C-alpha cells in the first residue's frame, strides 16, 4: 500500500516538474544552441545528484526518525497545501491555467533577444537551462529523498522519479515541442493531495500521534482531503451574482 503511494507520489511530482523544465530547455535549445543547452542540463542533473547523495546519506545517518518525520511532514504539508490551494483556484476559474505554450513562447522570445553564439560555449543557453533544470529539479530531489527516507525505500522513490523522467523526456524528444496537452492542473491537484496526506501522517507520527489502522489511516486522510478539495472548488467558484475578484494571475514558470 505505502509502496504504491510512494512510487506514484514521487513519479507524479517529478512528472510535473520535468514538464516545466522541458519547456525551458526546448525553448532555449531550439532558439540558441543545443550543445550548450544540454551541457547546462547535464551540469544541473549532476549538481542535483551530488546534493541528493550527500543530503540523503546525512539524513539517514544523523537524524532520528521521529524528528525527521516531524520536520519533513511539516514541510510536505506546506508544499502540499500550496499546490492544492493553486489547483483549487485554477479548477474554480479563479487563477489562469498553467499554459506551457505561452511559457515556451515567452522563454523563446527572451532567448532570441540575446546574440546567438554559433561556435564555442553559449553561456546564455547554459545558464538558462542549468537554472531551469536545477530549480525545477530541487523540489523533486527533496520529495524523493524525504519520501524515500521516511518510507525507508529511497530506491523505489528514485525509480518513480526515473520512470517519470523517461516518459516526459521521451515525449519531448519525439514531439520536439512543449507538452501542452498534459493535464498539468489535474496532476498538480493529485500531487498536492498526496503531499498533504503524507505530510499530515508523518508529522503526526513524529509528534507521537497514534493513527487508527496505522498505515491504513493514509487512505482515510487522502479520502477526507479529496472530498474537502472538491468542496473547496465548488465553494470558491465565482457566482454570477458576485462581482469577480481581481485575483487572476498570469501563469509563470514553476508556478
Amino acid at each position: 500500500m505505502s509502496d504504491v503511494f510512494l512510487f506514484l507520489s514521487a513519479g507524479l511530482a517529478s512528472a510535473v516538474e520535468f514538464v516545466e523544465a522541458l519547456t525551458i530547455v526546448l525553448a532555449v535549445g531550439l532558439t540558441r544552441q543545443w550543445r550548450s543547452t544540454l551541457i547546462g542540463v547535464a551540469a544541473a542533473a549532476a549538481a542535483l545528484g551530488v546534493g541528493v547523495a550527500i543530503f540523503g546519506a546525512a539524513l539517514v545517518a544523523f537524524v532520528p526518525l521521529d524528528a525527521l518525520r516531524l520536520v519533513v511532514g511539516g514541510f510536505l504539508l506546506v508544499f502540499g497545501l500550496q499546490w492544492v490551494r493553486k489547483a483549487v483556484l485554477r479548477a474554480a476559474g479563479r487563477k489562469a491555467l498553467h499554459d506551457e505554450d505561452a511559457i515556451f513562447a515567452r522563454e523563446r522570445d527572451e532567448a532570441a533577444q540575446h546574440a546567438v553564439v554559433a561556435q564555442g560555449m553559449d553561456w546564455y543557453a547554459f545558464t538558462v537551462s542549468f537554472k531551469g533544470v536545477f530549480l525545477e529539479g530541487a523540489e523533486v530531489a527533496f520529495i524523493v529523498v524525504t519520501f524515500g527516507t521516511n518510507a525507508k525505500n529511497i530506491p523505489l522513490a528514485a525509480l518513480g522519479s526515473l520512470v517519470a523522467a523517461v516518459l516526459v523526456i521521451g515525449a519531448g524528444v519525439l514531439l520536439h515541442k512543449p507538452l501542452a496537452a498534459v493535464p498539468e492542473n489535474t496532476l498538480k491537484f493529485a500531487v498536492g493531495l498526496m503531499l498533504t496526506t503524507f505530510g499530515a501522517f508523518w508529522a503526526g507520527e513524529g509528534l507521537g500521534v497514534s493513527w487508527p489502522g496505522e498505515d491504513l489511516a493514509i487512505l482515510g486522510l487522502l479520502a477526507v482531503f479529496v472530498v474537502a478539495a472538491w468542496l473547496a472548488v465548488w465553494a470558491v467558484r465565482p457566482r454570477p451574482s458576485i462581482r469577480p475578484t481581481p485575483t487572476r494571475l498570469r501563469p509563470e514558470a514553476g508556478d
Partner: protein
Amino acid sequence: MRYAEAFFHFWYDFLIGDEWRIAAGIVIVLLLTAAAVHGVSARAAGGVVLAGVLLVEAYALWKAVGGKG
C-alpha cells in the same frame, strides 16, 4: 549582498512559498497536536492534525478569493 538576498529569496520561495499564512498555520497546528498528544491522548491528537490542516487550507483559500481578516 545581492547574493545573500538571492540566497534568502530562493530558500524562502522554496520552503515557504507565496502564501506565508500556510506555513504559519502549519506551525500552530503542529504545536497544538504536540499539546494534544501529551495533554489528551495520542489517538485524539490525530483529529487535531486533520481538523487543523483543513482549517489552514480553508483560511488560505478564503484569503485568496478576497477574504478580509
